[in-house]
């Protein structure tokens, strides 16, 4: 059965047309990723309209190609100019740029490319292994648990807004509110139409997404007229020959950094809401902390390139695990992929892998295969990438705005979708300029219906509101996610006051102690055993810190 599914998926992915589309996708992703300010999410969102006329496997393989290409393209700009192409390659510039300036740009690029490749492969292997297992866990989740999971996803994403978490939460709530406009799925009743017939259908997903993310980003890029007339990358940026052999040797010599960073990437990706932008910094930081020569980091050493580049490619493996196993997007790019699945009438849920095995395994294989294409295309097309990045920013903005309109209209041939694009384009720029993060809003739009459907189911199953609310706190998975949501909501304050205020010394022990409670409630022996370990860890940490009088930096 498994072999049949894999064979069916391989046949679909390795079809000439699909392979050709993947080559196009990876190339587009590499170029988009190399352009500073052009995020991967934007590239994947702009690819979505092209996939309408394709089969589900073709469309998703193309989008995965763009995703993998984008993750690897970001390193080129970072290494050649010092300006990271995407937020997920910020840490790559710390050592990549100094190494390139030292006269080894070919080696720096090679290490980056091959670290991305190996990191992506590790991510793909974990994806194939873990997604079906997590989907089995997902089958245990009831409507209470899914609702709590959505709340957790939103608080995690909002907490990444840093000290302005209130703004992150407001953005998330605005996204949820935007998703309620139009007929509701449970009762079929129109909401917030304000007398407009067009609003009865609600806002289509793609125009909202492209408007919020791409439209507003493009317009914020051209605010400064002089900067907008400059090329995307300085004229000094030159194509170089990648030194593959030496780079592979350097990467494999650092296999421990590679594997650790890839695993950091995968598990960061599994957490709903977090993505490559967090993973690359986290992996770099861990590589530096565990290194025998931490003082050399930042001077252009290979370890400083291997860690962030392997982790950011592996992150998408993790994000795809959550999307495929639970139907909850791991980050903004997988939120768009989720939209693509919905367009093809495929609804990701814990039963997705069982119900649509060929499509599920196609995603696995496409993610794996896209990394090989990335290596090929990166090696051959570097010169072309540099040429594209010499285009002035305003030219790119004007052309892409027109593409946004054509792509959005193509979704369902409805004029109102273009006005939705315009409206959310304005909203996106206004929110950006007032310092509101857009990622929580996008997740809010995507997760709004899932949250409402599950809340409605939970309230319908139980007789009274009291029993329904009690179920949210007595069901183990629901309690587990609510505890994580509370701690992630407090996280920005914890991070800001870490080791400076006494209460922060109790954060980690209290987290482990609290999480152990639902684990005990889950039954069996594995989860209570993990709960016992966490309980013991929390108790030891509390005891040690209390014995030392809750030390802070000042008292140290």
């Amino acid at each position, binding site marked *: 059965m498994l072999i049949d599914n894999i064979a069916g998926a391989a046949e679909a992915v390795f079809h000439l047309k699909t392979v050709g589309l993947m080559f196009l996708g990876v190339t587009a992703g590499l170029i988009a990723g190399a352009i500073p300010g052009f995020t991967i999410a934007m590239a994947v969102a702009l690819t979505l309209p092209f996939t309408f006329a394709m089969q589900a496997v073709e469309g998703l393989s193309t989008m995965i190609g763009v995703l993998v290409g984008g993750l690897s393209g970001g390193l080129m700009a970072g290494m050649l100019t010092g300006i990271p192409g995407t937020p997920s390659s910020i840490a790559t510039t710390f050592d990549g740029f100094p190494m390139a300036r030292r006269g080894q740009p070919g080696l720096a690029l090679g290490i980056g490319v091959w670290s991305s490749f190996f990191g992506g492969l590790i991510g793909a292997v974990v994806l194939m292994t873990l997604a079906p297992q997590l989907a089995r866990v997902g089958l245990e989740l009831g409507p209470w648990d899914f609702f709590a999971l959505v709340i957790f996803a939103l608080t995690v994403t909002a907490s990444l807004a840093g000290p302005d978490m209130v703004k992150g939460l407001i953005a998330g709530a605005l996204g949820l509110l935007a998703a309620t406009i139009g007929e509701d799925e449970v009762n079929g009743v129109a909401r917030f139409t304000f007398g407009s017939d067009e609003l009865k259908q609600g806002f289509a997903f793609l125009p909202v997404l492209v408007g919020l993310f791409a439209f507003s980003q493009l317009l914020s890029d051209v605010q400064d007229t002089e900067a*907008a007339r400059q090329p995307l990358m300085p004229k000094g940026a030159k194509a170089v020959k990648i030194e593959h052999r030496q780079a592979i040797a350097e990467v494999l010599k650092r296999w421990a950094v590679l594997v650790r960073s890839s695993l950091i990437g995968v598990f960061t990706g599994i957490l709903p809401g977090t993505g490559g932008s967090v993973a690359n910094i986290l992996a770099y930081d861990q590589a530096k902390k565990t290194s025998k020569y931490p003082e050399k980091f930042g001077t252009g050493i290979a370890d400083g390139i291997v860690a962030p580049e392997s982790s950011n490619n592996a992150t998408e493996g993790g994000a795809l695990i959550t999307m495929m196993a639970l139907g909850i997007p791991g980050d903004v790019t997988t939120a768009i992929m989720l939209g693509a699945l919905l367009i093809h009438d495929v609804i990701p849920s814990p039963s997705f892998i069982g119900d649509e095995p060929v499509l599920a395994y196609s995603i696995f294989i496409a993610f794996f295969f896209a990394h090989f294409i990335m290596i090929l295309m990166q090696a051959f097309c570097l010169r072309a990438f540099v040429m594209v990045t010499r285009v002035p920013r305003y030219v790119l903005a004007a052309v892409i705005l027109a593409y946004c*309109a054509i792509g959005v209209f193509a979704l369902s041939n409805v004029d109102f979708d273009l006005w939705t694009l315009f409206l959310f384009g304005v909203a996106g720029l206004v929110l950006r300029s007032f310092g509101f993060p857009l990622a929580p809003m996008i997740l809010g739009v995507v997760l709004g219906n899932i949250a409402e459907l599950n809340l409605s189911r939970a309230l319908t199953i139980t007789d009274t509101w009291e029993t329904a609310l009690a179920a949210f706190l007595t069901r183990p998975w629901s309690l587990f996610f609510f505890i994580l949501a509370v701690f992630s909501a407090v996280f920005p304050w914890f991070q800001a006051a870490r080791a400076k205020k006494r209460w922060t010394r109790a954060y980690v022990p209290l987290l482990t102690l609290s999480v152990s409670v639902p684990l005990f409630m889950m039954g069996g022996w594995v989860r209570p055993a993990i709960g016992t370990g966490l309980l013991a860890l929390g108790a030891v940490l509390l005891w040690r810190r209390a014995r030392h009088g809750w030390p802070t930096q000042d008292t140290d």
Partner: protein
Amino acid sequence: MNRDTGVAIFLLLFCGVFFAATFDIRETSYGTPGAGVWPRIILFALTLLGAGYLAQSLKRGRAAGDEAGRGLKGWLATYRNALCCYFLFAVFLLTMPYFGMFLGGVLFVFCTLTALGRRDGRTLLVHGAIALGAVGIMWGVFTYGLNVILPQGELFYGW
């Protein structure tokens, strides 16, 4: 009053308008929670967050470099290009029934390029070529490659 205070007050008013609109949602008796329940939960949370944001902004006071102090002129100077693009995009949408996607798109790209870039003779020619080439290729891909029927425009009916 700083910029955040203004935004927070606007947000609270926005919540008020939407909360009032929840009472226009038709009640059902299907044995499921009403269609207004979920929006009210969101609006309750949003109002609480808005109030917290307002309190935070009042506590913070007028921050250094606050854009509110720069007045309308400063704001217009910052967002001149974005406003220009929005205006051109709105014109593009309003005239689409007449010009269609292809001609409208070409005109939109050309006007946007000219508004944002330089305006000498040679550059205008380059802008025209970019607009025609970029929109033409994409229009061709969707029309002939993906069989999507894009708006033809009244101007071209009967051609």
